[in-house]
């Protein structure tokens, strides 16, 4: 919140008379523009190349603008790019990713929110211990747990299936998300819960009627974290999803990696752009809330 307030204050403050271009200001802008370019140039090259036909790519420099920009490569990447002998395009991976993403995001956020609320507002016996375990869980690199996880899932018959990969994403999301929600709910006065208890509301009624409606900002933070995290995941999808459910990232790698004859850079680049788009869109739509939620959590937690 404080960030937003400062912006408003700066914008509404009267400009100093005769806004002057000082050497310091030129340096500042030069630095900012160079920094932005540093991160943007790879993206621009990818986007630029995806709009060119192969002839142009072979003939010219990667920085040359397309003579006749066309989305033909995008269409090919979407519908008919090949992974091995399968030539249905990256859309298969897209829909697999959606099928993995939606339930994983919904359940991991819902469960974490309830966990965080329970840990923050209903101090029960052992709640501190559970919190400690969660902290530990949040810091363990998940490569360590991969093999045991494979064994566990294959024991219960979920290994290499859609429910399997969803369960894995939910479990790996829980520690960090629970901590985020706990910190957020710790900042909510306990008297609200007491008032609701006297009003006759139980654990879940209080959560859904009172706590959840207050959590918009933190829900959006969790949503962005989970959508980007799960969409961009490669390792877990590769290991746990099974051949039928490989997510878009894995399929992208397969498309780029399976070379028969000439390497079609424009299709590879288009497939890359398509894979990167969903998290970007989510961020552009809700980035404002993201900053707000992070700062709110930071101040209150």
């Amino acid at each position: 919140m404080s960030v937003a307030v400062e912006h408003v204050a700066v914008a509404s403050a009267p400009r100093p008379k005769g806004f002057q271009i000082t050497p310091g200001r030129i340096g500042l802008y030069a630095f900012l523009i160079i920094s932005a370019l540093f991160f943007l140039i790879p993206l621009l090259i990818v986007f630029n190349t995806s709009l060119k036909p192969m002839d142009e790519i072979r003939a010219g420099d990667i920085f040359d603008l397309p003579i006749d920009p066309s989305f033909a490569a995008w269409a090919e990447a979407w519908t008919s790019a090949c992974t091995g002998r399968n030539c249905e395009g990256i859309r298969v991976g897209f829909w697999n990713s959606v099928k993995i993403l939606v339930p994983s995001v919904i359940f991991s956020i819902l469960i974490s929110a309830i966990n965080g609320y329970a840990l923050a507002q209903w101090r029960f016996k052992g709640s501190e211990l559970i919190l400690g375990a969660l902290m530990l869980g949040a810091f363990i690199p998940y490569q360590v747990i991969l093999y045991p996880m494979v064994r566990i899932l294959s024991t219960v018959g979920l290994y290499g299936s859609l429910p399997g990969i969803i369960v894995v994403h939910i479990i790996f999301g829980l520690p960090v998300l629970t901590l985020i929600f706990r910190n957020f709910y710790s900042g909510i006065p306990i008297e609200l819960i007491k008032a609701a208890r006297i009003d006759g509301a139980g654990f879940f009624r209080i959560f859904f009627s009172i706590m959840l409606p207050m959590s918009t900002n933190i829900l959006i933070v969790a949503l962005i974290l989970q959508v980007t995290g799960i969409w961009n995941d490669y390792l877990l999808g590769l290991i746990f999803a099974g051949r039928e459910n490989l997510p878009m990232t894995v399929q992208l790698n397969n498309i780029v990696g399976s070379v028969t004859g000439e390497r079609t850079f424009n299709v590879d680049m288009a497939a890359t752009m398509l894979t990167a788009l969903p998290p970007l869109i989510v961020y552009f739509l809700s980035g404002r809330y993201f900053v707000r939620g992070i700062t709110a959590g930071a101040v209150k937690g």
Partner: protein
Amino acid sequence: MSTIRIRNVNKFYGPLQVLKNVDLAIGSGEFTVLLGPSGCGKSTLLSAIAGLEEIQEGGVELGGRDVTHVEPAKRDIAMVFQSYALYPTMTVAGNMSFGLRVNRTPKAEIEERVSWAARLLQIENLLDRKPSQLSGGQRQRVAIGRALVRKTPVYLFDEPLSNLDAKLRTEMRVEIKRLHQTLGATMIYVTHDQIEAMTLATHIALMRSGVVEQFGHPEDLYQRPASLFVAGFIGSPSMNFLPGTLAPNGAGVGLELPGLGGGQQAVDVGGYAFAEPAKAGEITVGLRPEDIELVNDGPALEGKTLFVEPMGADSLAWFDVAGHRVSVRLKADDGKRVGETARLAVPTDKVSLFDPTSENRV
């Protein structure tokens, strides 16, 4: 019937005992104030009655029903919190009706009760607002309204006025008193403000460090405080205390006081209602500022005037009596006429006497 019985309640936070053998019987329709300084356990006791805090020993009965281990929701109580605790995402009407909606009250009845409470508290025009759009006083009214719509036989108030400014506080105090008279419900009210306690209560339970020091009518606590603590806590300015000596003789009981002049060694307090026959020895004497009169002759304390505080309706004069500071409440005019010394008559029928070691009334 909504009597409240609190039976020998003990409560601990770890090794710290916050309620010590609290035992109260509250009649139906009474307005009981739990009064005491911060940390005396009054809010904890209220939470125990509400069921928000577990008690380790003893029990709570509401309307003759043992509710010691009953959930707050099933105790048939409503409560108003110090911080108001309004649900921020709901409108005023939503806040007030939440409890009824949870309990699946029919819609028509919910509307009827909400508009009844809104009318009673004059917040009808606020029903569609969110709590964040309300002033402190309005929030307080909504919080009270949320309790009222439940129409429970028992209402609990946890320092409801302490976040309001002085003027609003007086207004709301009158409002709460009016509500109590209108509803005839049993109310328990926690505060550290003795004025609130004296004006609202039919009974006061004065607490100190987890113990109920005295439980009774406000005038009892004021006129016949059970201990030095009660005497000092209630009344503003506080009761004057002087060290004296009791000397029972055949005819009555002599009370020797420092600074006693006019050719007298002692005043007679034979008319005092001693709990047990008076014993000779040291005693602490308590005198209310308004019970002391300035006299020209007769037995009286010789006082040197320190200063006079005019307070509009009356004046407060401070005297030095043999090294002890004594305050006397005077009429505004009399305050102007106080000379350099004065003679303070001891109201033998209105003194309070305390054992200096046990600090209890004798």
